[in-house]
């Protein structure tokens, strides 16, 4: 299916998949530290396992950003 992932149209070799499966397919490291926007809607982490992507969907993902001078 064709998806728009982080603004780029891509053909992925998946018939159907959850968002979590798509992140694994994209070899995203530390997917539990990734935030996802699905067709403009911010997903809660638990929804990564339940929301299914389909042809034409727009997926954005970003890594959690944090840190600090401690340590």
């Amino acid at each position, binding site marked *: 299916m064709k998806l728009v992932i982080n603004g780029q149209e891509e053909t992925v070799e998946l018939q159907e998949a959850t968002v979590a499966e798509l992140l694994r397919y994209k070899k995203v490291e530390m997917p539990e530290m990734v*935030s996802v*926007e699905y067709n403009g809607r911010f997903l809660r982490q638990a929804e990564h396992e339940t929301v299914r992507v389909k042809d034409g969907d727009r997926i954005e993902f*970003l890594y*959690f*950003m944090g*840190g600090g*001078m*401690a340590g």
Partner: protein
Amino acid sequence: MLKIRQSIRDAMIRLAIAESPMEACGYLAGIDGEARLLIPMTNVDQSPEHFSFAPEEQFNALKQARNAGLRLIAVFHSHPSTPARMSAEDIRLAHDPDMIYIIVSLMDAEPVIRGFRMEQKQPVEVMLEITEDG
């Protein structure tokens, strides 16, 4: 190496000073290895020792960069009273393999800015070249 326009460097320092003693943070967006746009971000931790971004604001920054024909290439935060090195917490939370992590230290009278990239979970310094505004 990452090129940073002079105005962006100055803006990072101004933001770090303005937010001090809290940690300031934001993204740098750019193209062709040069940072051209600073996107200030809210430090949702509101802490002098920690920072984190709100995911919804991150997506807004991503779109702001894309609409300008740029992409997010670096994330910066300030260390108000410690050196410009990646702390243990910075390393632990640096998950994005494609991002350059910039730290602005206000520890000394003259601010110090250094950049790092994560390789095999260890920070490797990235040289920063300050360029004139085009």
